[in-house]
């Protein structure tokens, strides 16, 4: 990248927290262990019940996305210094998109006939309805995109946002991702054999038996460092490099390894300089094995030395939001020097040689961190963040 792009706004909503400070508190550091917050898996309505009246037709995906985005824009102070709206773009990502809204519309017409479809529901059956709502409420008129590339889509949105600034098409980009949970989604995931039994999610652990899922939305504000500094915004971290790859699902480990190497190359660092890894391992044994192999393939011997944490052990698998939530936590780790921990003391699975950060957050003061996201359908994205420089 030719410009220094930074994260200058953080917003997140999940069942146990609204706002990045509340989210950070889920990963305590004073000897207290984090606890899994996956149950209940739905975000309380109170998080988004004060949204503008003219947007009463939004579906749940739009509502939680707007809640996270409003928090991020407030945090970035863009509300008080918005600048030219044509210079602020928005990219929104979702793994499963408006699947629940499509179900709702289809249920209606399958039951009563196609002429009785609900037009209000129909307008939300396109995933970019959420993007449209975000742009309307916050007057975001720059480059716009909606991505639905599976579970890695959140990090892909971050990559796209950075590219728009790097290309000079926008001064800043609002990067959001969200997924909601529906009974049919849970049923579909269960049919694939991907859901674990109730209890804690244990990425990389011998006792892991599947993932647990949750709703979440997370939004980040990206902009060029000099502009962020000039308007007095808080700078959490630099986006130093990104990599995105894809391929047949059976080649997931190689795909992620490529993405990691691309991100490191763009950041112009060797693997040994990474101070922490925010892994997308989620407790699915095959998924975690791909991630494990990818880290070893891309980082070499450093894979066994670098501290690795897994936010999904606390937050669950939140699909597209997982990647952006991990970036949010990684940015706070760079900003504060504390790397979040994994609850409990999972017994490493067979062949595992990773230095997991277990228990309370650890004082590690990394300068560089890696965040990974692996999709279930063959996509992989990696992001390298750097501690903000004055």
């Amino acid at each position: 990248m030719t410009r220094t792009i930074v994260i200058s706004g953080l917003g997140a909503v999940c069942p146990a927290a609204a706002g990045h400070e509340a989210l950070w508190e889920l990963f305590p550091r004073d000897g207290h262990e984090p606890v899994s917050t996956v149950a209940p898996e739905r975000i309380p309505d109170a998080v988004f019940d004060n949204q503008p009246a003219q947007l009463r037709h939004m579906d749940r995906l739009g509502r939680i996305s707007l809640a996270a985005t409003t928090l991020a824009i407030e945090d970035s102070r863009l509300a008080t210094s918005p600048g030219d709206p044509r210079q602020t773009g928005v990219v929104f990502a979702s793994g499963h998109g408006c699947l629940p809204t499509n179900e709702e519309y289809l249920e209606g017409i399958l039951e009563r006939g196609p002429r009785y479809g609900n037009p209000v529901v129909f307008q939300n059956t396109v995933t970019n309805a959420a993007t449209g709502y975000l742009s309307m409420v916050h007057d975001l008129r720059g480059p716009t995109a909606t991505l639905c590339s599976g579970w890695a889509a959140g990090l892909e949105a971050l990559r796209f946002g950075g590219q728009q600034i790097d290309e000079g098409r926008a001064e800043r980009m609002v990067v959001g991702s969200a997924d909601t949970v529906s009974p049919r989604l849970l049923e579909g995931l269960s049919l694939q054999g991907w859901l674990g039994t109730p209890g804690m999610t244990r990425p990389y652990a011998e006792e892991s038996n599947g993932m647990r899922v949750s709703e979440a939305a997370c939004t980040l504000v990206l902009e060029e460092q000099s502009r962020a500094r000039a308007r007095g915004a808080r700078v959490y971290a630099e986006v130093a490099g990104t990599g995105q790859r894809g391929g047949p699902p059976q080649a997931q480990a190689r795909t992620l390894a490529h993405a990691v190497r691309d991100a490191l190359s763009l950041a112009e660092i060797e693997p040994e300089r990474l101070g922490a890894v925010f892994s997308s391992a989620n407790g699915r044994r095959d998924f975690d094995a791909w991630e494990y192999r990818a880290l070893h393939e891309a980082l070499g011997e450093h894979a066994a030395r670098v501290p690795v944490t897994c936010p999904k052990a606390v937050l669950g698998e939140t699909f597209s939001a997982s990647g952006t939530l991990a970036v949010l936590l990684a940015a706070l780790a760079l900003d504060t020097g504390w790397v979040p921990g994994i609850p409990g003391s999972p017994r490493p699975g067979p062949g595992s040689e990773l230095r997991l950060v277990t228990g309370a957050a650890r004082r590690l003061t990394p300068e560089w961190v890696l965040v990974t996201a692996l999709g279930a359908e063959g996509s992989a994205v990696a992001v390298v963040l750097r501690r903000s420089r004055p």
Partner: protein
Amino acid sequence: MTAHRVVITGMGVTAANALSTGALARALEERRSGIRETAAFGTEGRARTAGEVDLPGPPLDAEDRVSRLALHAAEQALQDSGLAPGGRWSEDTGVMIGTSRGPALSLERFMRSGDAEARRKLFAEVPFSSIARNIATRFGLGGVLSTVTMACVSSSLAIGRAVDEIRRGRASLMVAGGADALTQLSFSGFSVLRAMTPTVCRPFDHRRNGMVLGEGAGILVLEALEHARQRGAKIHAELCGWGTAGDAHHPTSPHPEGRGLQQAMASALAQSGLTTEEIDFVNLHGTGTPANDPAECHALRQVFGARTASLPVNSLKPYFGHTLGASGALELIGSLLGMERDFIPPTLHCEELDAKCDVDVVRGEGRKRHIDVLMSTKSAFGGANVALIARRLPEAGREGR
């Protein structure tokens, strides 16, 4: 930072009036539409016609219809580019696919089915990303894998993003475009919104009263100019600029002045380094709805000023319907086929221009015209807009066609 020039070396289509680029070129020259009464499902609303594809080959249980539409076009595009079969694939070849409805038919079947094993298989197709995944898997592609779902601008945005990947050296080859299948969900939804015509789609005509839905796919093979030259590939055109911008106005209606579209066109022009005087022709979205066409024409006048009076424009929707997420790629390919034949296809059924659409709409027999540079614009729900600019390579006499 190096910026590579990006060229189109392969094109493939699946449409109601054509299952190949050759057939599409002939259909456009003969002004032949594929719109007919739909047999896909019973229609109860006011609209009964659609651009339905007669897809060759038996249905496959493993792939949603939208993937089959896309794979048909992708195979053509790769063959056209000289890369298939047995082509030289690399892990730098990515797939960027746009779709509005994705595999909605699999979702519908998933909801109807009571068989657990059938439901398990169907759910694997339900994610939007299954189309790109199926292309990557079928052709062994291991570069960037991405799915854009931006309603009617989906494939235009996918193409623009693919251009960026190559321009910045992140990929040497990209398979990009989009697909959408006819679904009861869309047919019912646009019908209850009263966006569909009970008669015929008449873009820019004062009697226009809605769109006609279609299905299809348009897939392009894009690559860096030097990469194409090295392997001696034929070159259809250069993609030299693109832009995207939001209206921030309404969930389903365009900004009345085409606010975002103006900016998308300006952004595409800026990237291409071209002036409005150098654009020879614009393929508009032209849905035939009361709100869309005037907004587009207003945006055109704002960007092109006095040049608008002599700037030919058209809409290709009456040929194969509004193919939603596929429309950007399909209509770009249709326009390029016209450019290669020095022909601008007419806008079918546009007989009396609406005063609000007072621009140079190509009608009647079409227009013989040498085109060096064309622009294709699309707009979508959520206020999304994309503009793409393609040009004949100046040195096309040597390697173009």
